[in-house]
């Protein structure tokens, strides 16, 4: 990764530091949820196996692809902004479009599961599944909104380059965090069964 593609200098934190306090707290919450999920798996393996079989691998794969692509677009958008200064809003809009693919596939998965009689109250596995993924789902929605707001703001603002870059880096960091959480949820829910 050579110079123009990355931040320059040592000890640089992308985006606003205030955001990183928040991201660490969010990761702590997700970490605890995943830890709880693993703990329950240890204690009730049969229930877990049965629950996992009901999930749809294809939906999981589509979601992973969508989020990875979104992350890639956002990272590229930030780099473009760093080099040229403008014309990068479309990357953020496109990434938010990837989020939409995730949303559609997640909603349809929820719908299928729900019509098969599974809900938050079915058993502990589905309680975890629905709460954790719904919590993550809301983060994707929030991230999409942030990216759209960012893109529109970038188009019309007359702020200086540094402010623009910082705003973009902050939004990107949030989006990557959401992606990172999914990277762990994906094997837990769709692969290891």
């Amino acid at each position, binding site marked *: 990764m050579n110079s123009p593609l990355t931040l320059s200098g040592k000890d640089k*934190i992308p985006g*606003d*530091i*205030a*955001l990183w306090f*928040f991201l660490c707290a969010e990761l702590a919450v997700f970490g605890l949820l995943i830890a709880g999920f693993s703990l329950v798996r240890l204690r009730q393996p049969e229930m877990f196996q049965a629950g996992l079989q009901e999930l749809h691998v294809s939906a999981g794969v589509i979601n992973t692809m969508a989020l990875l692509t979104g992350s890639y677009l956002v990272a590229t958008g930030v780099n473009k902004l760093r080099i040229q200064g403008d014309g990068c809003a479309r990357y953020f809009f496109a990434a938010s479009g990837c989020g939409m693919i995730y949303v559609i596939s997640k909603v349809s998965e929820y719908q299928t599961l729900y019509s098969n009689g599974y809900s*938050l*109250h079915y058993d502990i596995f589905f309680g975890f599944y629905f709460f954790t993924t719904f*919590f993550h789902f*809301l983060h994707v929605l*929030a991230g999409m909104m942030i990216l759209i707001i960012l893109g529109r703001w970038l188009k019309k603002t007359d702020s200086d380059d540094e402010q623009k870059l*910082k705003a973009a880096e*902050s939004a990107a960091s949030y989006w990557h965090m959401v992606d990172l959480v999914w990277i762990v949820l994906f094997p837990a829910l769709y692969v290891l069964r």
Partner: protein
Amino acid sequence: MSERFTKGMARNIYYGGGAFFFLLFVALTVDTVTVLPKRENRELLTAEVAHGKEIWEKNNCVGCHSLLGEGAYFAPELGNVFQRRGMENEQVFKAYFSAWMKAMPTGVEGRRQMPQFHLKEQEINDLAEFLIWTSRIDTNDWPPNIEG
């Protein structure tokens, strides 16, 4: 470091985060409220039970006792008193409860005293109904044992 930590971002996190989590809380509340009737057997919540709850409140019972673990910790938990003192038999419990309410205060020197509330027979019955109904709420297995 300070210029990379901006007030604007901190404010956005405050408003955005606050709204996000409050909305999620409201959503979970809606879900909770829809499943509560099943968990607490709302179909068994008769007028007597409702009246019993009013008597419970009117005499500030929660000022000494706890009910499902909430209240004061000066006197025993009553969420499972039906099991503890009534052996899950309504007749046994009501007879015990009525006798208990009439015997108060014991007046034993130095011991904790429960006031005499001068409840009518009907009121004692309804209060007992309320405690019986309460003992059947699905409380995720709490309390751990019969002593509450």
